[in-house]
């Protein structure tokens, strides 16, 4: 056989998150290795849904800082995603897109988050700022803004809990239940989650306090607070409506509580 040539298959890295596979095709071997290392626990394919992107890397002089404003909009059935360090187009019907980006893990990470949030929005699910974990076959979500305690509750997790993420949780709808799935989107722990999933048993809205307790929360407040934490990138009215409906459906099927806690392992004793 011919040597020294890279076959098309070898140019592709497939990342599977939440049962959705995305093929990333790049001709740059060092960037391919970077992707493989970053998403090591999430490499593989799922037959359920499949999308692909061709990646073209910027020259170092081309890219602007990553904190440039993000813009996500749809034009004639194609999503346009752009920030200083990437410019992407994606046609969800064709399942295909192109990314021009800096040779940076942050750019591809941002594109993947956006694309998954768009896919999930049409399926009744969402990405949410939340830590999540599986314990006893049940998944729990711990949501809150930055500083609310997502990293703390993750760090306090007992050995028999499987951490799905300490930062961005993947919530997928399956009939009349929701699944929490592991993500490689890490927060302060800088540790990717386990690539596992389980039926979601409860969502806890985190608040630091003087003692550990679970409090009820009014449904409307629960939905409002959930919506505040849902990752939502697109300036698109139809998508706003979908996300709103998803949050309402979620709240009708999954118990939502306020979890007031002190940074102590005993908080996990009351999580059922």
């Amino acid at each position: 056989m011919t040597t020294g040539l890279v076959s098309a298959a070898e140019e592709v890295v497939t990342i599977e998150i939440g049962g959705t596979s995305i093929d990333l095709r790049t001709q740059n071997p060092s960037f391919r290795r970077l992707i493989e290392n970053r998403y090591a626990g999430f490499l593989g394919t799922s037959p359920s849904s499949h999308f692909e992107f061709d990646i073209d890397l910027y020259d170092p002089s081309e890219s602007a800082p990553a904190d440039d404003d993000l813009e996500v909009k749809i034009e004639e059935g194609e999503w346009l995603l752009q920030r200083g360090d990437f410019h992407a187009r994606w046609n969800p019907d064709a399942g295909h897109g192109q990314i021009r980006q800096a040779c940076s893990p942050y750019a591809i990470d941002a594109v993947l988050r956006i694309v998954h949030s768009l896919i999930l929005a049409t399926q009744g699910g969402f990405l949410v700022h939340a830590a999540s974990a599986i314990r006893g076959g049940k998944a729990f979500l711990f949501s809150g803004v930055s500083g609310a305690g997502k990293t703390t509750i993750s760090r306090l997790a007992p050995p028999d809990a499987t951490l799905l993420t300490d930062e961005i949780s993947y919530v997928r709808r399956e009939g009349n239940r929701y699944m929490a799935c592991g993500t490689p989107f890490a927060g302060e722990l800088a540790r990717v989650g386990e690539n596992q999933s389980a039926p979601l048993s409860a969502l806890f809205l985190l608040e630091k306090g003087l003692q550990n307790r679970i409090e009820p929360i009014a449904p409307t407040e629960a939905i409002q607070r959930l919506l505040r934490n849902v990752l939502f990138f697109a300036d698109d009215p139809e998508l706003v409506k979908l996300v709103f409906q998803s949050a309402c459906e979620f709240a009708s099927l999954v118990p939502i509580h306020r979890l007031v806690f002190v940074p102590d392992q005993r908080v996990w004793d009351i999580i059922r």
Partner: protein
Amino acid sequence: MADKYIARSTAIAARMLGGEMMVMSAADSTFFTLNEVASAIWQAADGRTPLSEIVAGKICQEFDVDPEHAQRGAERFVDELSQHGILLVSDEPLVESSPTLVSR
């Protein structure tokens, strides 16, 4: 003073939950939870019934409020929601896509 006609914008998502109406603007994602009185006004906002008639015929009938107080409260509510494009307000009956629509 000219009467106001109000209609619900189509650029919103809304759902009734536990007697309260949740409304979210699709334009700027502003989220509102309406109490029972506000929910009743919201549901009566058909673009054809004057606001004063909604207040007199529905709000004052269903809730124990005096007409003057109810009218002032309704106008404040309508002003606030119209500023977010959630309610459309006009001096004339509203017809969908009519050029007389005023969204404040």
